[in-house]
């Protein structure tokens, strides 16, 4: 099992294309939200033979556009609940694909979505790999975290 970079790229590009018909590409510039920016972060936990989490951090404006495409609505029609549902669904699909690479049995949690200015916080976990992607003028990142051994 490597650092998941190839798989993160492959699954993210494929999911965003098939679900949203959006072309996203890995970029070397890391997504580092500026202070005060609202970020929407989705997370699914993986439990079992391998324990950790898969998360997607993206700017609120991009999450809103994603929801408007997913639910075929205008930006004005999209509610906060739908924005969270959309990011939760993308996170769930990405996590499900990553889980398929891991030793069985593993279980995928329901997604959790947080609106934050600080990024996701999962105590007791270490970052395995984070890949930043570009979509329109926005950046977002997909990360795999592994639970630290006690």
């Amino acid at each position, binding site marked *: 099992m490597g650092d998941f970079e190839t798989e993160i790229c492959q699954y993210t590009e494929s999911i965003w294309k098939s679900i949203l018909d959006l072309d996203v590409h890995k970029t070397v510039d890391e997504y580092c939200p500026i202070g005060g920016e609202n970020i929407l972060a989705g997370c699914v*936990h993986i*439990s079992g033979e391998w324990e950790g*989490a898969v998360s997607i951090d993206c700017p609120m404006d991009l999450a809103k556009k994603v929801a408007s495409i997913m639910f075929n609505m205008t930006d004005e029609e999209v509610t906060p609940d739908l924005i969270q549902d959309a990011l*939760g*669904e993308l996170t769930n699909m990405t996590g499900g694909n990553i889980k398929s690479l891991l030793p069985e049995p593993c*279980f*995928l*949690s329901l997604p*959790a979505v947080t609106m934050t200015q600080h990024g996701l*916080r999962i105590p007791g976990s270490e970052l395995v790999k984070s890949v930043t992607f570009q979509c329109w003028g926005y950046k977002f990142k997909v990360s795999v975290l592994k639970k630290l051994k006690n």
Partner: protein
Amino acid sequence: MQFLEKEIQKYTHLVCSILLDFEISPLPDSYEMPSAKMFLGSVQITGEWNGAIMLSLPSTLVNTLTEKMFSLESGKASIEEKKDAIGEMVNMIGGNIKALLPQPCALSAPLMALEGDTLHFPSTKMVTHCKFECAGKPFALSLYEQDPS
């Protein structure tokens, strides 16, 4: 009576009294939680039963609990220590609640959201919401279950 309400009250009391030597008491359903920004900690349960447990505490209580857990002087708790303290609390409560649910179930690592952040669990519904008082400050524990619809 809400789903597992008595058990949630029992285990929350147990964790607070054993881990932190703090007595807590349940608050009535009618109690209105303060509108102040809350510190949120959650763990998710996956398997035969799917859902999440979320602890919601005001920052003043987070400081008090963290200082007690790590034997710190007043005002000395770092953000990392606060995350660890609340993560440990919700992990212990979650572990006890998980044991009451259909097996097999797995408990996730804790996920934290700081004051002003929000935390949502799409495709779930809140099935239990218990309010407590600890050291003169209110806090709440909620149980979310996957919504089959």
